[in-house]
């Protein structure tokens, strides 16, 4: 049974899956479904029609195939830590949860590769590789709970991507079940697989091109030396000047982070990070690599910070000291809850050179609108995370905060930057895409969508405000033997 849009129903999918997946992992009870109604962006909530807790790649594939067969929308979800509503369910669709696929198939240090299931936790990969001297470089703040599948979907970054790049730079190959139900392998374990770079297109596609069922990722050698510097400044201008000078000196630190006075206040209240009292800004610089290079770079950074006016400089050379410095930074988002009942975490990017001007304008907007904005940012790559503070119980406060949040994004766009550096577009920012891209730009992206997902059933409504209708074309999954049919497509 299909309605007049050609879409089938969740019930049909449920019937198909009844033979394949135990009923205990096919959730339809409203109370159970409620657990999955939002991801890390709790402002958006939708109750899914069906939740499938897949246990292995076969079940994951079966779930997507059933959706493909009946043209029922599906949304993939890993750990549910995303901050843009990318895993927001579809009311008439299926939420496919990958978090039970947690097998770490291989750590092959000599090849600098790990082979993992999509539900494997980011930090677990590093923990498994550490004894052999390796780690997985992308380190989003949520790395203790976020999954590799989610990292792939969102092209996750983290504090250290200035030097080491994003998830897209660390994924070599993916097993994927396409929205048509086909299973394909994209890429090879070695770089430069022949043909189009479909791994490059897939990573960061926010679940709109299919679901990864296995990933081959790159492992990076642990550095010989890591040194973390905390410098207190009177103002963000001073901290920003130090950042520019470090980059101009030819140094690419592993991370350069800035927190402003309000963010410092929140972090101090939450975790007593011991940041310098009275600081208008703190700068955290982490240097890593070969010991003698780090030694040299450290001397440069120290000199630059003193020249830029730091009044307190602290250095961590061991893991415990380093954790102490990072504690305040990593807890900053949650810490803001200590100084404001409600807040919006924004994510925008500006060219590094535009930082002082953008921060000044942000200060003006904040003052004009009477809305406090705390700032935490990856200064090295111009990735801002303004925290817009408000009290939802005050009349009109939510609207004012949202307006300020939107003005900040406009500021990012007009400075030549981006509406998102690492949190993704998801449900939250689809409406801003036309401010950054022309209709033709967006239409060109939709060409990729139509090649992967001609029926538009994979995470519909995310990223793009008005999806293009793909031309009529034969559907891949049909008839009695979709398994064989799709399987044959990959026989060489």
């Amino acid at each position: 049974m299909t309605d007049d849009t050609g879409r089938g129903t969740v019930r049909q999918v449920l019937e198909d899956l009844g033979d394949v997946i135990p009923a205990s992992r096919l959730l339809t009870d409203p109370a159970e479904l409620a657990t999955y109604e939002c991801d890390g962006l709790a402002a958006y909530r939708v109750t899914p029609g069906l939740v499938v807790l897949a246990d292995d790649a076969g079940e994951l594939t079966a779930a997507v195939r059933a959706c493909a067969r009946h043209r029922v929308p599906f949304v993939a979800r890993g750990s549910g830590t995303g901050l843009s509503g990318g895993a927001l369910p579809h009311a008439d669709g299926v939420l496919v949860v990958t978090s039970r696929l947690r097998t770490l198939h291989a750590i092959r240090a000599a090849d600098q590769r790990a082979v993992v299931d999509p539900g494997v936790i980011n930090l677990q990969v590093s923990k498994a590789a550490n004894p052999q001297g390796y780690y997985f470089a992308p380190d989003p703040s949520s790395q203790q709970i976020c999954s590799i599948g989610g990292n792939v979907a969102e092209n996750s970054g983290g504090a250290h991507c200035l030097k080491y790049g994003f998830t897209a730079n660390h994924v070599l190959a993916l097993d994927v079940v396409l929205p048509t139900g086909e299973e394909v392998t994209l890429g090879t374990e070695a770089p430069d697989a022949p043909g189009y770079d479909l791994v490059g297109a897939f990573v960061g596609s926010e679940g709109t091109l299919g679901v990864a069922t296995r990933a081959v990722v790159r492992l990076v050698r642990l550095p010989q030396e890591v040194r973390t510097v905390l410098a207190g400044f009177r103002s963000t201008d001073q901290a920003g000047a130090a950042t520019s000078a470090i980059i101009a000196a030819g140094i690419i630190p592993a991370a350069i982070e800035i927190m402003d006075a309000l963010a410092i206040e929140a972090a101090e209240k939450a975790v007593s990070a011991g940041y310098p009292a009275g600081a208008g800004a703190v700068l955290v610089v982490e240097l890593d690599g070969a010991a003698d290079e780090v030694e040299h770079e450290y001397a440069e950074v120290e000199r630059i910070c003193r020249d830029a006016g730091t009044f307190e400089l602290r250095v961590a050379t061991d893991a415990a000291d380093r954790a102490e410095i990072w504690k305040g930074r990593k807890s900053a988002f949650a810490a803001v809850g200590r100084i404001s009942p409600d807040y919006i975490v924004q994510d925008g990017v500006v060219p590094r050179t535009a930082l002082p001007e953008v921060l000044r304008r942000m200060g003006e907007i904040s003052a004009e609108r009477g809305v406090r904005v705390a700032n935490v940012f990856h200064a090295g790559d111009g990735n801002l995370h303004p925290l817009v503070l408000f009290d939802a119980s005050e009349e009109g406060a939510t609207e004012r905060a949202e307006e300020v949040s939107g003005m900040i994004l406009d500021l990012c766009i007009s400075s030549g930057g981006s509406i998102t550096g690492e949190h993704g577009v998801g449900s939250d920012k689809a409406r801003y895409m036309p401010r950054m891209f022309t209709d033709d730009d967006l239409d060109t992206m939709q060409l990729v969508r139509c090649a992967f997902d001609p029926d538009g059933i994979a995470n519909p409504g995310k990223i793009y405000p008005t999806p293009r209708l793909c031309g009529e074309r034969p559907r891949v999954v049909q008839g009695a033997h979709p398994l064989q049919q799709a399987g044959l497509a990959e026989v060489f």
Partner: protein
Amino acid sequence: MTLADELGSVCPVRDAGADDAVDGVLPQVVARPASTEETSALLRACSGRGLAVVVRGNGSKLSWGSPPERVDVVLETGAMDALVEHSRGDLVATAGAGMPLARLQQQVGEAGHQLVVDDLAAGSTLGGLVATNLAGPRRMWVGAPRDLVLGMRLVRADGTVAKAGGKVVKNVAGYDLSKLLTGSFGTLAVVTEVTVRLHPVPPASHWVGGAVPSDRLPGVLAALVASQLVPHAVEVHATPGADPSVVALVSGTEAGAAARAEALRAELGPGASVEAAPPAWWGHLPGRRDGLDTDGLDAAGAAASPPARTVLLKTTSRLSGIPALVEVATAHGATVTGSAGTGVLWAALPARTPQEVADAVDAVRRTSVDLGGSTVVLEAGPQARSAVDTWGPVPAVDLMRRVKDEFDPTRILAPGRFVGGL
């Protein structure tokens, strides 16, 4: 009215000559648009007439891959060669696709910056590097063009102009079309402008290494790629019947780089030395500088028989498989150079009979695929080409065909040149 006259209202167009053939396929005209807008108008005119278009930068890699099924128009990017922007504080540059890499390096070099891409083919334009995702030794340091391209302007087959990505190093808004187009051999769209991430030029560089007996190769390579001394490149070079050479690049501060180079030398053993310049084979495709002339002449100038071009392969494997891949390739007469640090090798087979070439390709390909990689025949004369499978097994080729169908439904962009006859 000739085709040159018809298209001439859009941009400068001339009749093609014998030198304009694309891997043996003669075009009718050569068009030279000077802007994205002219490129758009040209492609609109071509798609309306069903004319096949092949993009040419400096032409250094134009014979790579399969020959196109047909070519009507060669689109030269040479008039789009400006440095549009070099944002020094952001370490980002935007330039036209026709910008020669050497000139780009010189211009951004004034600020102590560089695009960390080694021009293996010598003479590449920025567009050509992007079209082939060409990367040499230092890909171990920062990756390949796919990792360095931040955004681009592109013109679709029907003339639609679009922007991909942006001008900031961190950006996850929408699909990363720049990665999709990088390495697509001009079969999806015409790239007119590219924005790239730059890196500072390190103050000092040293090359460490030397000849390594074959039986020690696995151990030496394993030690180098696992070193915490952060070599920016680990290259292997091997010819049939001789011990392979292994050389690592160590860059950084004057004192630091020298000390690390010395430490690596000690690790490598008695035969290793530290040099201030790379060996002659470094950063070049094998073949041309190794006595295997592309015209089928050996080093002494004697004509090989039958006259044929050197066959150039790109072959990859997992890191631990590189010694085995080197061994198989050299056993089949190949000269091999490449990045042992990332698992990407280039192999030049001497001009031989098509059957010998086919056997060699088959052996190298089987080994590379078994070791998690692939083998592509980039260059070959017509006889050898007809005896081999240029691309070998391509994962997800059906999906690639659908991508091509969406971008270029009438197949006017380099038809037949890419995997699966796309």
